[in-house]
C-alpha cells in the first residue's frame, strides 16, 4: 500500500485532520471515500473472511475450553493409543487452526485485500473532478 503514501520528504501540515494545503478544497472527502464502491468492496471482502473466521475460531476454542471444564472425563479418554488423550489431540487441533487460519488470512490479504485497499485509497485521493490530491498527512 506504499503507493498511496507520499515519499515522506514533505512536511505534513499536521493538525486535526487538516489535509488542506493552501486550498481547503483539496481536503479528502472521507464520507464520499467511505461510500465509494471500491471501499465498499474492500470492506465486504475483508468482512467476508474475518467475520466467519473469527466466529469459527472463537467457537472451536471456547468449545475446547468448555469441554475441558465440563467434560474432563471425555477429555481424558484414550485416543488411538494409551497415554494419548482426546483432550491433547483437541489441543493440537487448536495449534493447527491458528497456523492454518493465519496463513489463509495473510494469503488472502496479500492477493485480494491489498489491491482493493490500494484502489479504494486511489479513489479517495481522486476528487470528483478527477484531480489528484497530494499526500495525506499522517496524524
Amino acid at each position, binding site marked *: 500500500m506504499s503507493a498511496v503514501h507520499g515519499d515522506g520528504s514533505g512536511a505534513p501540515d499536521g493538525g486535526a485532520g487538516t489535509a488542506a494545503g493552501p486550498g481547503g478544497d483539496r481536503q479528502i472527502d472521507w464520507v464520499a471515500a467511505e461510500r465509494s464502491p471500491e471501499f465498499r468492496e474492500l470492506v465486504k471482502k475483508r468482512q467476508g473472511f474475518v467475520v466467519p473466521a473469527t466466529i469459527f475460531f472463537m467457537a472451536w476454542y471456547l468449545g475446547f475450553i468448555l469441554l475441558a471444564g465440563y467434560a474432563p472425563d471425555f477429555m481424558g479418554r484414550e485416543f488411538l493409543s494409551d497415554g494419548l488423550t482426546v*483432550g491433547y489431540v483437541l489441543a493440537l487441533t487448536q495449534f493447527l487452526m491458528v497456523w492454518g487460519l493465519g496463513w489463509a488470512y495473510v494469503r488472502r490479504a496479500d492477493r485480494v485485500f491489498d489491491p482493493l485497499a490500494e484502489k479504494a485509497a486511489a479513489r479517495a485521493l481522486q476528487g470528483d473532478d478527477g484531480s489528484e490530491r497530494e499526500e495525506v498527512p499522517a496524524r
Partner: protein
Amino acid sequence: MTYLAAVNTTALAVFAFVVGITLVVTYFASKRVSTATDFWAAGRGLTGPQNGFAIAGDYMSAASFLGIAGLIYLFGFDGFLYSVGFLVAFLAVLFLLAERMRNSGKYTMADVLSFRLNQRPARSAAALGTLAVVAFYLIAQMVGAGVLIEALVGIDFSLAVVLTGAFMIIYIVAGGMLATSWVQIIKAFLLMAAAAVMSVWVMAKTSANPVELFRDARAESPEGQKYLEPGLFLATPLDTLSLGLGLVLGTAGLPHILMRFFTVPDAKAARSSVMWAVALIGAFYLMTTFLGFGARAILGTAGEEAAGTGGNLALPNLAENLGGEWFLAIVAGVAFATILAVVAGLVISASGAVAHDLWSNVVRKGTDSEQEEVVVAKIAAVSIGAIAIAIAVIGGAGLNVSFMVGLAFAVAASANFPALLLALTWRRFNTTGAVTGVLIGVFSSVLLVVISPKVWPGPDSEGGLLSFYDLANPGIISIPLGFIGCWLGTVLSREEEAERSFDELYVRSETGLGAEEATGLRLTGGSDSKRTPAEPAVTR
C-alpha cells in the same frame, strides 16, 4: 559481602554474557535514536520477521517459560490449557487489530481512540488502561525475577530486583524502542533455542515417542490417569472458561504488544509480523509439552518440593538433571533474558502513555516540542522503573503475585480491547462510551480479583471474600461489563463529531491512507541519508 555468599559463578558468567550482548545492542541503538518516532516506534523500520521475533520476545514472559512448564509438571493437562489460550489469542490480534493499529496509530493505543473521540478524556482513559495493565504485569515480572535470580544464581532478592530494573531502564533511556526491540529479538532466539535443545534432550533421555512420554509422566504422578485429564489445577468449569476468554481477548488489549505494530513500515509488514510471531510462539508452546511432561517423567514426585511455588523451578531443575551445572546456568540466563525483554517492552509502552498521552496531549494540549516529549518519556521510564523496583523490594519475595499476570490480562480484555474494537468498528461509539467502558473494565477486573480466592488464600476464606463468589479469573464477568459500559455510555450521550470522524478513521484504518511514514531507522550499517531531518511535532 553477605550478598554474594553462595553465588553460582557459572550462572553469573552466563548472566553477564547475556547482559553484555544486550548492552552492546543498546550502545548501537543509542547512536541512532533521536526523534519520538525513533524512541517509541524504532523509526517504523523493522521488517516483518524482525518484528515477529520481537513480538514473541515481548509476549513470552517467565510465566510462559518457567510458569507453564511448572504448571504442567505439577498439574498435567491443565497447564497446557494456558499454552493453547496464549497462542489462539493471536488470531484475534491478526484479524481484528494488527493492521488497523498500524494504519491509524502513531505511538500508543490511545492514538487510535483519540482519532475520533474527544482528545483529553479518551487519552486519559486509554492511559489508565495501559498503566493498569503495565503495573500488574510489571510487578509480577519484577518479583518473579528477584525470586528466580536468588534461587538460581544466589544473588540476594533485593539486589536482583534492582539489577533487573536498572538494565531495563538503561535499554529504554539509551536506546528506546530500537534497543528494546533488539533485546526482544535476541531473547526470542535464546528462548526458542533453549526450548528446542531441552525438548530434544528430554526425548533422547526418555523415549523418542511423545505418547510414551505421556505414559512415563503418568506413571510418575500420584494422580495417575487424572494427570492427563483437565481439572487438577482449574477445578471450577466456569473458571476455566473465564480464564480462556481472558487469555484470548486480553492479548488483543495488551498495550506493549499493540505498540509493536507501530515499529513496522506498513500494514502488510504488521500482518506478516503476526504470522512470524505465531509460528515462533506456537512452536514454543508446543514444546512446553516436552518441557512440562518431560519434567514429570524425569524428576518425578521427588522433585515437587524443589520445584517451589507454582512449580516455577521445575524447568531449571530439569535442566540441571539433564546437563548439569552449565546447562542449568544457560537455562537460568535465558530465563533472565526473557524477563528483561518483557519488562523493557512493558515500561516503554507505559512511557508512551505518560509522555505522549498524558503529558503531551492532556497536560500540554499538544503545544510541547517533540524533544520535550522524548525527554518526558525518559523521565517517565526511569520513574516507572524506580517505582516498580521499590514495590518489588518492599513487598519482598513473599509478595503474592500469582494473580497479577491474570489480572493484567483481565484488565486488557475488559477495558482496552472493547474500547479499541468499538472505536474502529462502531460508528455510533463516542467519548462517554470509551471512558465508561474503560473505567468499568478496569475497576470490575480489579474488584473481582480482590475478592477472589487467589487473594484470600487459607482455610478461613477458602472460597474468597464472598462465599458465593469463587472465580479466580474475572474475565467471564468483567469482559461483558466492559462492553456494556462502552455501549451504555454511548447510547446515553450524543457526540456528533465522533460519528462524523468515523468515516475518516474507518477509511484510514482499512486502507492505510495517510498512515505514519517509516523513517528507516536501522540498528547498524546502511546510511540514514534518506531519513527526514526531523519530523515536525504533529500532535493531535
